[in-house]
């Protein structure tokens, strides 16, 4: 009965989220391009290579541990690259360079917010996750708390985050591939969905990790080449790059400083909080810490990942400015040069720049890389979502831990296929919607529900099951509600009049995080149940394992 109620809550939450998000505005049709042969060739090369890896990984994926964590034997350096590959989505490559192209400095502000979550992950949760958990972050959150409520809560938080992120990626993938490869939108979405199902179902975490590593290397190489070509154009002088950009850009010297991205201090702080702590609550990112053997490798992964991601954001800044020089002046990249309408829309500057600096061949390479980027990110997301279903909901909530490994793996493969199909359906449903806000919504949910529960379960001895359960849901629901009744969805997406949104802040993380933390605190300290005493008594042993790794899940089972 209790399981049924929980399941009801989950379904209602997911449904209400999709209904609200489903009602959006028309973005306008992205026009289809002619077939790009070099892009298709390079893409086929990538796909056959990664399918080969999946076949190889499938031979090595025998146990649940192999499936969820690639056997736990990934090195810190490899994991750092894979994290970078998991995190640098097409949204950050195309979106940030597009933002720099459009408004200059504001793009840098955004990318910094996306980076500064990493040190916090390292100082607060990375090695703690490795020492306490096994497959999902819910393992850590529920370590000393009631398994059923906490895992259900964590699985809800994970699935909402994963689905929102997944929709944004699928729609982006469809539009991008339609534009780059001349495929129909629905075919592009189905292709992404099918490939991701193949990688994850057969190759599990091992294949996903290698897809992410390869993609990270390709993306970093491609972006480095573009940045060097841009700098070569201006004789390797930043002074010249910025001078030319300011002269060309219609906003002139406004692009050299902060513009309209954040207007009031509260929004600025709130945006920062959401980006910083959202990163520390993304299930597909947290899951990567279980793939390394110990705390030492977990720390190294973050160090390398921060380096790669930071370097990448500096490149996107140069690429954005390069596009102002080389793309905005060339009518062939525009569908309407006078009105300033780029072919393919505002996310395309980096793609057009690839053509401007490297011709058709390099355009093909970057197009294939952009596709690979999407594949790597959706695979990581799907694996995290499937683990929440199979490891948390099925094995530990519905079966109360009485389940054998083979069965659990079967369920996770079924969940992968189900999530893949759901992603395809949602991707097609949302074709014409503006999905840009969904990534930020995913970050807000992660920062307000997943992160508070995870952090307090590790550090706060007085946290109780009741507090974490109620507080986690309060954070989740507040985050969803405030984004929906805020200007981005209410006015821009649902189309109500400007200024009519019941909640006037674009970035609600400061409120929803506070709601989450305060509810967890309040419902914990007022909890005098027997369960609460058990929760508090369990802290000491948990803390010792957390601090020293004694008793932690080792690198290899045998």
């Amino acid at each position: 009965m209790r399981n049924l109620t929980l399941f009801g809550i989950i379904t209602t939450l997911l449904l209400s989220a999709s209904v609200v998000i489903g009602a959006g505005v028309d973005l306008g049709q992205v026009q289809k391009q002619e077939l790009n042969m070099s892009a298709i060739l390079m893409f086929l090369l990538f796909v056959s290579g990664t399918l080969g890896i999946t076949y190889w990984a499938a031979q090595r994926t025998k146990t649940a541990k192999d499936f969820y964590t690639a056997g736990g034997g990934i090195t810190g350096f490899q994991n750092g690259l894979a994290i970078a590959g998991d995190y640098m989505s097409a949204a950050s490559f195309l979106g940030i360079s597009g933002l720099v192209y459009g408004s200059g400095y504001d793009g840098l502000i955004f990318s910094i917010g996306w980076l500064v979550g990493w040190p916090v992950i390292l100082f607060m949760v990375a090695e703690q996750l490795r020492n306490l958990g096994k497959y999902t972050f819910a393992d850590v959150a529920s370590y000393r708390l009631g398994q059923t409520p906490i895992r259900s809560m964590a699985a809800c938080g994970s699935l909402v985050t994963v689905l929102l992120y997944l929709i944004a990626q699928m729609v982006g993938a469809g539009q991008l591939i339609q534009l780059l490869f001349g495929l129909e939108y629905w075919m592009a979405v189905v292709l992404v969905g099918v490939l991701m199902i193949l990688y994850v179902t057969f190759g599990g975490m091992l294949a996903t990790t290698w897809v992410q590593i390869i993609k990270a290397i390709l993306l970093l190489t491609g972006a480095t080449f573009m940045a060097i070509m841009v700098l070569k154009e201006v004789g390797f002088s930043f002074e010249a790059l910025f001078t030319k950009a300011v002269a060309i850009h219609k906003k002139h010297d406004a692009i050299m400083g902060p513009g309209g991205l954040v207007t009031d201090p509260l929004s600025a702080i709130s945006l920062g909080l959401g980006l910083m702590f959202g990163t520390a609550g993304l299930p597909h990112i947290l899951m990567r810490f279980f793939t390394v053997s110990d705390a030492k490798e977990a720390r190294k992964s973050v160090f390398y990942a921060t380096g790669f991601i930071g370097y990448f954001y500096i490149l996107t800044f140069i690429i954005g400015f390069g596009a102002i020089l080389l793309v905005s002046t060339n009518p062939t990249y525009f569908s309407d040069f006078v009105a300033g309408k780029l072919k393919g829309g505002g996310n395309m500057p980096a793609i057009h720049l690839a053509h401007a600096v490297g011709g058709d061949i390099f355009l093909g390479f970057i197009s294939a890389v952009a596709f690979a980027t999407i594949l790597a990110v959706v695979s990581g997301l799907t694996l995290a979502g499937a683990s929440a279903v199979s490891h948390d909901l099925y094995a530990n909530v519905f079966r109360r831990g009485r389940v054998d490994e083979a069965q659990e793996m079967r369920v996770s493969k079924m969940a992968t296929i189900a999530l893949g199909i759901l992603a395809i359906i949602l991707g097609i449903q949302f074709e014409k919607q503006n999905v840009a806000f969904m990534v930020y919504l995913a970050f807000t949910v992660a920062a307000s529900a997943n992160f508070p529960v995870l952090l307090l379960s590790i550090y706060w001895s007085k946290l109780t099951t009741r507090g974490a359960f109620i507080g986690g849901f309060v954070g989740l629901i507040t985050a969803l509600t405030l984004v929906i009744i805020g200007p981005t969805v209410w006015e821009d997406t649902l189309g109500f009049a400007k200024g009519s949104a019941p909640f006037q802040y674009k970035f609600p993380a400061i409120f929803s995080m506070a709601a989450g933390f305060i509810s967890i605190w309040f419902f914990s300290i007022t909890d005098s149940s027997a369960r609460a005493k058990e929760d508090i008594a369990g802290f000491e042993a948990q803390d010792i394992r957390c601090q020293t790794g004694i008793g932690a899940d080792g690198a290899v089972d045998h």
Partner: protein
Amino acid sequence: MQPDMVSKVKNHPKYRELLAKRTIFSWILTIIMCSIYYGFILLVAFNKEFLKTPIADGSIITIGIPLGVVVILSAFLLTGIYTWRANGTFDDLTREIKKDVQ
């Protein structure tokens, strides 16, 4: 974990040392990172003009650009400092505790 193991570790002097050192260290680094980042964000919110000041007379480059790059580099540097110290000092202490109790 066995109850006797819990008390053995808890009362180990090196465990207390580890706990004290690591807690302070991660808090200091977290506070540094947050001060740098939120300091930057507050500049964006309150003092846009400062960020738009040229770094030198006649230069087009504004203070905001090197400052932004510094924030990115500081994130990388801080993770490096933590990793270096934790993989050295903290892991040595942990190893000694483990050796004594197991």
